[in-house]
């Protein structure tokens, strides 16, 4: 055991390690054995166009889809074939694409369900207050049905609901999608402030400009393969990235 600890010290700041992950939809490969890692305290972005496999990657990480091969190591533990509700309990939390709030449920019910795995009522209450502090507008609208909120407010609710799970790693699937350009700046600021508070983030975006502006490190996904990786600054000046994703 002691030997293992020594061996692992070099990797201790790695929160998520993905090794040769393969996912199929029927007979069609959506991910062809991708590998990447996220270090503690980083914002890492996964770029790619529609159908590149970004959402599939996140769904596989969260256990919504089972991979056919490969490994997902989170906090040193192999979580590859664990059911989704078990993965969430370990602090790997996904904010799904399109916000996916429960429209018929009230704002407060949406948030409470975020903390579903917590059996301690007081703890739930404390987390709820923290979310309300961060997003005062949600406190104002707590009794309203989620579906009556504006797009930006719904995104805050989705983020707040994710924070109720006290994530160690937050997977964000296209938080800027379907949001008015002005509000995208708000979302960017929220991601920044989450990061400042110590949350590690894996950000999936089509909006490469926003993503590379936020991230420390990036991977570029094309038809189920990682074709490029590097520091955000390097990717921003990479000719291929500029051409394909930054509209240069």
């Amino acid at each position, binding site marked *: 055991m002691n030997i293992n600890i020594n061996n692992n010290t070099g990797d201790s700041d790695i929160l998520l390690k993905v090794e040769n992950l393969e996912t199929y939809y029927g007979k069609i490969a959506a991910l062809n054995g991708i590998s990447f890692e996220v270090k503690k305290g980083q914002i890492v972005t996964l770029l790619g166009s529609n159908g590149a496999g970004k959402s599939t990657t996140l769904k596989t990480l*969260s*256990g*919504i889809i089972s991979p056919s091969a490969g490994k997902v190591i989170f906090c040193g533990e192999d979580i590859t074939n664990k*059911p*989704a*509700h078990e993965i*969430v*309990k370990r602090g790997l*939390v*996904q904010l*799904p694409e399109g916000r*996916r709030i*429960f*429209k*018929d*449920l009230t704002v407060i*019910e949406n948030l*409470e*369900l*975020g903390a*579903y*795995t917590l059996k301690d009522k007081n703890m739930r209450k404390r987390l709820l207050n923290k979310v309300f502090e961060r997003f005062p507008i949600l406190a104002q609208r707590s009794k309203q049905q989620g*579906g009556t909120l504006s797009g930006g407010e719904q995104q805050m609710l989705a983020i707040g*609901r994710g924070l109720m*799970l006290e994530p160690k790693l937050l997977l964000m699937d296209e938080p800027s999608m379907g949001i008015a350009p002005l509000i995208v700046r708000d979302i960017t600021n929220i991601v920044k402030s989450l990061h400042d508070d110590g949350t590690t983030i894996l950000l999936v975006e089509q909006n490469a400009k926003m993503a590379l502006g936020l991230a420390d490190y990036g991977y570029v996904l094309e038809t189920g393969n990682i074709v490029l990786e590097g520091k955000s600054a390097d990717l921003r000046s990479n000719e291929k990235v500029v051409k394909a994703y930054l509209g240069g």
Partner: protein
Amino acid sequence: MSLSEVALQQLINGLILGSFYALIALGYSMVYGIIKLLNFAHGDIYMTGAFACLSVFGVLSVIIPGPGGIICSIIAAMIIAGILGYLAQRFAYRPLLGAPRLSLLITAIGVSLVIYNFIMVITNGKASYFESGLDNSAGVHIGDIKITYIQIVLIAVSALLMIGLTLFIGQTMTGKAMRAIALDQDTCRLMGINVNKIIGITFIIGSALAAIAGGLACVYYGNVQYSMGYTMGIKAFTSAVIGGIGSIPGAMLGGLLLGLLEAVGTQFLTYLGLSGSAWKDVFAFGILILILILKPNGLLGKSEIERM
């Protein structure tokens, strides 16, 4: 009897009938809401609940006769029906959740036939009589209107169950999870909700409610037969659709409405010189079709079209 007294008497009869429909409709609606399955085996779960109550009371009444024994027998029936509902869900429906809806529906019909025929064979297709030992005619008179104690208990029990269920669905985390799963299963998984477990709980609660209706039918009607779940199942299903399938208050409203329509319709048609009991279904379902034409999603149902 004056006309208003007749109307009141029919109102009581309608409430009783409606309570049965509502208790069973709740199971239909809860299951439909959460996995979009029309569980056609639900009427047979009600019938099984009635037989379970009858069998347990047959043994138990020697030790605990009267209401105490009946209550214990109904609780036993709830447990038996709950297990049956869970098993149907676990082994027949869950493996098909990813399959086309039609496969799931056919499976439900299959489960219904299995239960129906199983009970038919072990009871030799004969009706049994539930000897409650209670005086079914004892009650209170208000003018010419008569309400039996059993009717009072039946309405009270149904009302309490509906209030209890409403609180459970509205206030508890499990209830909130049920409503959330009805809206979006994958997102629920991402929230750490064990979706399969909550679906299982939904089946258990729905089946237990049907078993209570079965137990109450034992006491109220006395006759217990393998085919009793068929008509009751269809009527309860209708109630759920009228109320807006998937909606819990809708199932309650739909059940009570159908019961009242049948009771009042019987009386009304008799006044017209028709055979009320023969024509009551024509009358009740005629009105229900009218309601559906005006409100295709049911009285409290939500339109499937949503703003994105």
